[in-house]
Each structure stands twice: as structure tokens, then as C-alpha cells.
């Protein structure tokens, strides 16, 4: 199986879907000649032309609104919002319109569109360029939110998102673009709403998504050398959320930790924790723990930025605490 980067997997998938369906088009800032701020659309302007790889002015509300209107008329826009931070400018169009048009008009008009956007910190871009706002969208019925952590899932979920008849927020992550992994050739559609067991284990479950899932898998491999068997559930979709896979894993391991790049309060960790309470309470040996970012606007200077973001060390510490509290080491 070919090993390619997450960036290449996205680029290949956009090319494949533009080729497969003439209703698919790309729209966003800097995606044509400049090939995207993170080069995800490299080469596509030359291949598909400026009508289908459409550069826009800096006008997120306008071009997202236009994408929604075009989707209502039967096209399949894939909008790129340069970072999820800028999606706030388009929040009304996404939350009040894309998410609701199908339902509030009684199921007459689907809105088949994708918004691709990277989130996450760690690049010293400062507070307004480093957020993880996916949970805002995951809160909204009518939207779907996916967040692949591997190149293979980047391909499979982007394919699924473009072919889906509902609006999908496709979360990328700045620190994942250069990561590599095996990606199957040919068509691959990953079902939206299904978590993956990224690594099997028996002692404790770590639930994560996007960059956090990569950290969780690395941490699990290290702890395995010490005889600690960590299972990692990669959520992959935040809405719909695969509560069943989460609960099944926790019933098996009896211990759960959630790792997320986002702020702690009201986050994915809170939702997963409640899900485990509702679906696996009797199996738990200890309360669910959450490892998340410090609740601060992310600082710019490296020592502070690093301190504010959760990392493998933070996760390892909490896993150990969880195991100690439940007599694992005796």
C-alpha cells in the first residue's frame, strides 16, 4: 500500500472527486494560483480551471453563503476556510442556514456541501489562529462533523463528505498535514459516524480525534513496552458520534481517559464522559478523566504555547494516575 502524507491524501481525493462528478467544485481564499495556504489544492487550478477551482475575496460569510445557495441548486461545493478561526465570520451561514435549510423547509432541499478547514495550535500562530472550534459545529443538529487523524481516513472521510447530501464540516489539523501513512489505492469511502479502534488494548481506553488521536496511539505504543495495554478509540466523526464503539471499549477496559486539543469546559471530553456514564457506568472502575488544553487564549511564545497544549506527557501522567487509582500496579 502506498505511503503518502495527509496533505497528499486530501489533494488526491479532491482531484478524484472533481474528476468523478462535474457538480463538485472548490471555492475559497487562495486555493487557485496560490494552491491553498497549506497547499492542499496544489495543481488543481491547472487541471480543472478557475470556474471549478474558484478563488474568492476575503469574504467568508459571502462565499460560504454562496456555496450554500449553489448547493441548494444541485451543485456540490467544497469550500476551504483557511483556518477554522475564520469560520466564525461565516457562522450565521453555517449554523442558521446550511444546518437548517433541509429540516426547517420540511425536507425539500438538501444542502450537499463540505467545508474543509484546519484547526489546532502548536504552530505559534497565536490566540486567534490556533483554536479548536469544531465542538461549536458538533453541537448543531443538521451539520455533520468529521475529523480524520490519518491519511487513510482523510481520503475515506473526504470522499464520503463530498458524496454526502448534508452539510459536512471537515476538520483538518495544521500539525497533521505532513504526517504519513498507508493509504489504499482506488476508491475508499469511510462511513461518517463510525469511530475506529486505532489501537487495540485491554487495560484502559483513550478516546481522541484528529491530532490527539495520533498522540494517543504513540503514547499507547510506548506504554505497551511497560506492559500497559491501552486501547485507543479514534472518534473520526464528532457528529454523528459513535457512542456505541466508545461504550463497548470502556466496558472491556473499565477505565477511560479523553484526550482533546480543545479547552476542557463544555468540550468533546465532557460529551464522551457523559456518554460513558450513560452507557458503561456499571463497568467503570474509576471516574472518566479528561486531558485538554489550558483554558487560556493560546499564547504565542513557544514555552507558553507548549505548556498550554496537552501532550503525550500529560496523557501518560493521567493514564498512570488512573491505573494507580484502580489498583492496576499491585
Amino acid at each position, binding site marked *: 500500500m502506498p505511503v503518502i502524507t495527509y496533505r497528499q491524501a486530501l489533494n488526491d481525493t479532491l482531484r478524484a472527486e472533481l474528476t468523478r462528478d462535474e457538480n463538485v467544485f472548490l471555492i475559497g481564499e487562495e486555493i487557485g494560483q496560490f494552491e491553498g495556504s497549506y497547499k492542499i489544492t496544489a495543481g488543481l487550478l491547472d487541471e480543472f480551471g478557475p470556474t471549478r477551482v474558484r478563488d474568492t475575496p476575503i469574504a467568508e460569510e*459571502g462565499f460560504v453563503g454562496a456555496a450554500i445557495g449553489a448547493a441548494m441548486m444541485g451543485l456540490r461545493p467544497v469550500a476551504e476556510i483557511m483556518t477554522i478561526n475564520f469560520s466564525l465570520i461565516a457562522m450565521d451561514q453555517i449554523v442558521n442556514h446550511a444546518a437548517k435549510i433541509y429540516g426547517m423547509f420540511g425536507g425539500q432541499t438538501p444542502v450537499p456541501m463540505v467545508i474543509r478547514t484546519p484547526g489546532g495550535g502548536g504552530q505559534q500562530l497565536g490566540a486567534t489562529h490556533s483554536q479548536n472550534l469544531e465542538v461549536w459545529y458538533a453541537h448543531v443538529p443538521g451539520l*455533520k462533523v468529521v475529523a480524520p487523524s490519518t491519511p487513510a481516513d482523510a481520503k475515506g472521510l473526504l470522499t464520503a463528505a463530498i458524496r454526502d447530501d448534508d452539510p459536512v464540516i471537515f476538520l483538518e489539523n495544521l500539525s497533521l498535514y505532513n504526517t504519513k501513512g498507508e493509504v489504499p489505492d482506488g476508491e475508499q469511502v469511510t462511513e461518517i459516524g463510525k469511530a475506529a479502534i486505532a489501537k487495540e488494548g485491554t487495560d484502559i481506553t483513550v478516546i481522541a480525534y484528529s491530532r490527539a488521536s495520533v498522540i494517543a496511539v504513540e503514547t499507547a505504543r510506548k506504554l505497551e513496552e511497560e506492559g500497559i495495554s491501552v486501547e485507543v478509540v479514534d472518534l473520526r466523526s464528532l457528529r454523528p458520534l459513535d457512542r456505541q464503539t466508545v461504550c463497548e471499549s470502556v466496558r472491556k477496559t473499565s477505565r477511560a481517559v479523553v484526550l482533546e486539543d480543545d479547552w476542557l469546559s463544555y468540550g468533546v471530553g465532557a460529551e464522551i464522559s457523559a456518554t460513558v456514564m450513560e452507557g458503561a457506568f456499571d463497568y467503570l472502575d474509576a471516574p472518566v478523566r479528561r486531558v485538554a488544553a489550558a483554558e487560556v487564549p493560546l499564547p504565542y511564545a513557544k514555552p507558553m504555547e507548549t505548556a498550554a497544549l496537552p501532550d503525550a506527557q500529560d496523557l501518560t501522567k493521567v493514564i498512570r494516575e488512573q491505573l494507580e487509582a484502580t489498583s492496576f500496579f499491585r
Partner: protein
Amino acid sequence: MQEFDQRRQGLSGLKTMAMIRAFESRMPVLSEERLIRGSTHPSAGMEAVATGVSLALGPQDSIASNHRGHAHCLARGSDPGRTMAEILGRRDGYGGGKGGSMHIGVAELGILGTNGIVGAGIGLATGAALAAQMQGSDAVSVVYFGDGAANQGVLAEALNLAAIWKLPVLFVCENNHYAQSASIEEMIAQPDLKQRGLAYGVPSVDVDGMSLGDTFTAAAEGVERARSGSGPTLIIADTYRYLGHMAGDTEIYRNQVEVEQWQAKDPIARLVSQLLEAGVITTSDWEDIQEEASRVVQEAEEFARNSPFPDASDATQDVYSKGVPA
């Protein structure tokens, strides 16, 4: 370009305007009866804009409306009974009672929805125009918005997008002089709203929004510009709403003298005298038209009143197009 013909657009427009007036005049009554809940925004007085613009459109075209949108839908051809049923939250409404007055979509007529967010339809109509251009059709899209929405940022963004891409879209600003209670004099320093279009390179015109002929002619020009690939048009239609912003509005922000001054320019009365003078209709024809309008609205109301409420279990349907569990 389509010329305004009193026998065709004039007569047809008069029937539509009379029906819209009769329809909107029932809104305060139905609100008082508590058959309409939430918020409803009637447009009595503004009929010539929706009607004139709609007469310039073809079946392939689409419209995006706003919170004061019944007239836009009715003029576009929505069934008065199903429209009324949606406003009353009944099963036979276009959205099966999911939407209400501010969220009426009619896919088969290209109605991209009345809209509860001031200005938001501007983005949607721009997108529908983009789709038409990309699909190689000659369809145009229209967005209706008010002087209040002219202050929303999305207008600036959409005017610019439509101008750089030469999109087939008509931006129709119904300047009724009040954004809820806030007068245009208080909220806009430059009262010449067409400057906003001109600033983005969009051909922009003022029109007497109380004149069916004038709104039709301006819209027909805009439609022709759009269909021929020459891009968008901004129309600023000067008009006025006779009723409050919504049912229960105390209207402390304006006085009766002002309302009466505008009513003296009533678009329906004015059209009737024009058509009488031109010999297109007789007084008895006008009586028949009014009777017919009342009958249509009465039947619509009966249909809506008799339509059942939706099942409570429908609340969780149609969130996603393929029924993903919540």
C-alpha cells in the same frame, strides 16, 4: 426587454396585489386569535415591489426572501392555502409546520426561503446565481432585503462577489424606511442606498416602489442584464409598510400622519386609477377583482384552519437528508 403592458402585467399584477393585500390584512386578525404564534411580519403597502419583480421573472428563476416574505412567495406563485397553513404551523404548510412565517421554502418554485436572519438571503441568492452561471442556464436569482439589512456585512461581500463574477442576480432593497423601529435617518448617514451598489461596480437604480410599472420595468432591465451575462443589478425600491413591524408593534416610532401620507400613494389604488383611465378595467371589473381576492384568501384561510397540526413525532424527522439518528 419586456415592456410594461397595462393589459398584461398591469392587470395580472393588480390581481396579485389585491390578493396579497387581502392575505396580509388577515395577519393581525389571526395573530389576535392566537392562531399565528411567534412572530409574523406583514407587508401591506409594499405589494408593488414583490409583484413587479415577480412579473419580470421566468419559471427557471429563483428568489430568496426575508422575515417579511409572504408577498414574495405569493407573487412568485406559492399556493395561498399552503402558505397560510405554514404560517399557522399546520401539516399542509410547505414545510409541514416546521418553518412558520419566517421559514417558508418552496423548492418547486425556486423559493430559497423566507428567512429569519436579516440579510442572510443575500448570500443564498448569490449562490443560486453562481450555480446558474456554472450550470450554463439562463436562470437569474433575486434577493429581497430591507433598508435594515443594507447595514449587514453580507451585502457588501455579496455585491462584490456578484460584481467580480458577473453573477445573474438582482439585489432588490425594499426601503420601507424602518428597520423594525429604527428609522433610516437615524441609522444610515448616506441615505442614497444605491451608492452602495455603485461602490462595488454594480449598476444600481432608484425606483418608486409604490408603482407596479416602475418596479416591473427596473426588474425587467436587471433580469435582461443578468440573462445576457452582464452581471448583477441593485434596485432600491422606495416603499412603506402600513402595518407594524410585527403583530403587537406599538409603533411609537412613527405617527399616523406619516402613515396616511404614504397611504395616499397606495400602490393598488394608484394602479386601479391608471387601469381605469386606460380603459383596461371598469369599476365593476375592479369590484370583481377585489371579490376574487377575498374569496381566494378566505379559502386559503379555511384550508389552513382545517389543516391538522403535525404529529409530535414529526419533530425529529428530516434533520438530515437520509435520516441519521441525532
